[in-house]
């Protein structure tokens, strides 16, 4: 079977880089990925590029070379990177191209994301009255989840503690100092029950992935990191999403659940077969809920999983090995691609102090975003 393979990866460190535009951070990542793959910019036949707030990705050709190549811009909320990767994969799968680029970058102002009602088909009063705030939704969602499934606040703290501890060993991460659990728990509340250490921050960064047909990957002589599945899905009825003036009493599934189920179906494996996972953790509770929504545990088992360290680097299923969004911050256009970058690092066993032991062969990534979109990938070595 002919798989699409990832043959080159590059990243510009996440966080704050004064004096360097988001696009320049993307260019940095592309050059690193080209070098990693052992190819030239003129060899790249096409690209999908994503940015939410840092300009038109196709402007990159000015910096990288005017080869006349096809370059399509993607803007899909927090799933932007996942959508770029999905599209790149499909273009190669179709047989049209052999070598392409998925790139994402961003540079957000400090403070919470500032969304406007008109961008989400919502009435103006919703923003005027103070509801247009992502942190409100995330906090209300975890409050209900904790009530229904008996999750303790300390479990939220353990997720953040793990993120900062893992990030110590990730050169591309932003917050690389360990933070003790009691400091996390006693920090000021942002939106109850979340303290300031339990939310990620908007940030900056860039990630580039070079994808190739299996034939082309073999020519390049690279270890074959196969993209066994890449899915992107929107929400089903009864989901609970960002910016919802009302939600249905009859509760349903989520975009994550269907993107995940599709990805496992495509890859022909199940959650028990995954060796390492990067799950969307824009706040500590998101990682908790996404463990269950992606099928890795049942609702309510997360307290025990975290208390036993089952999602630690050396645990049963290491989750967010580079510290995730909590430690890397979230440049929207680049964030989903960072997860895949980290998975490639892990499958190549290049993770250094954060390397998952035991020769991992399968890796999973998941993003979720407004207004109810999710993208999942499964890699195999």
């Amino acid at each position: 079977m002919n798989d699409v393979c990832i043959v080159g990866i590059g990243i510009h460190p996440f966080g704050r880089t004064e004096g360097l535009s988001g696009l320049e951070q993307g260019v940095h990542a592309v050059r690193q990925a080209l070098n990693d793959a052992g190819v030239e910019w003129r060899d790249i036949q096409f690209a999908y590029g994503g940015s939410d707030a840092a300009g038109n990705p196709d402007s990159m050709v000015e910096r990288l070379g005017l080869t006349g190549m096809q370059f399509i811009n993607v803007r899909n909320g927090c799933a932007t990177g996942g959508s770029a990767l999905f599209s790149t994969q499909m273009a190669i799968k179709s047989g049209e191209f052999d070598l392409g680029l998925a790139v994402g970058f961003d540079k957000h102002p400090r403070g919470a994301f500032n969304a406007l009602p008109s961008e989400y088909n919502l009435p103006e009063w919703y923003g005027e009255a103070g509801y247009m705030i992502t942190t409100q939704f995330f906090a209300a969602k975890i409050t209900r989840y904790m009530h229904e499934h008996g999750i303790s606040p300390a479990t939220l703290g353990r997720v953040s503690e793990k993120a900062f501890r893992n990030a110590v060993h990730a050169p591309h991460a932003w917050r690389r100092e360990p933070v003790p659990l009691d400091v996390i728990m006693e920090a000021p509340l942002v939106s109850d029950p979340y303290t300031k250490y339990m939310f990620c921050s908007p940030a900056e960064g860039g990630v580039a992935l070079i994808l190739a047909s299996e034939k082309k990957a073999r020519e390049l002589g690279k270890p074959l990191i196969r993209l066994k599945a890449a899915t992107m899905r929107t929400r089903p009825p009864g989901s609970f999403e960002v910016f919802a003036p009302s939600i249905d009493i009859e509760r349903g599934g989520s975009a994550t659940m269907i993107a995940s189920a599709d990805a496992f179906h495509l890859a022909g494996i199940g959650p028990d077969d995954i060796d390492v996972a990067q799950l969307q953790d824009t706040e500590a509770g998101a990682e908790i809920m996404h463990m269950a929504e992606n099928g890795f545990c049942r609702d309510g088992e997360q307290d025990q999983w975290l208390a036993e360290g089952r999602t630690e680097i050396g645990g049963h299923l290491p989750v967010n090995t580079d510290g995730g969004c909590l430690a890397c911050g979230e440049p929207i256009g680049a964030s989903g691609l960072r997860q895949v970058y980290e998975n490639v690092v892990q499958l190549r066993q290049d993770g250094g102090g954060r390397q998952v032991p035991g020769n991992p062969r399968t890796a999973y990534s998941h993003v979720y975003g407004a207004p109810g979109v999710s993208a999942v990938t499964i890699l195999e070595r």
Partner: protein
Amino acid sequence: MRIISEGLITDETPPRLLGGRHKDSGRIVFPCPAGEDFDAYPLQRHGHLWSYTVQRYRPKSPPYTGPEAFEPWAVAYVELPGETIVEARLANIALDEIRIGMPLRLTLIPLDPSASDPIMIHAFEPAGEPA
């Protein structure tokens, strides 16, 4: 009295929130969407707390048009049985006394409590013991 937007509440005393009922599926939502798919549908005034959080920092302006002075407020999802779950501020309750399941009823509160002719927004307040 000025409401933050036309079409959010009914013209009666006390007012009700004006939701929408989908003509085909019967699904009830708030607010009532524009277009032809939904009929206006006044929602019941009583419900119970489904979930909540506390907004502890001043939202950015725009779009927020509340006062510069900021005090944390509670924002809830309130289940109106058989209808829908509505997002709304909580009023007239201490932040540490909020409990999931508590009975609530609709009220209107000023977006800026210090304004002389304030703009009113919808909120829910404790309704005592369950009926």
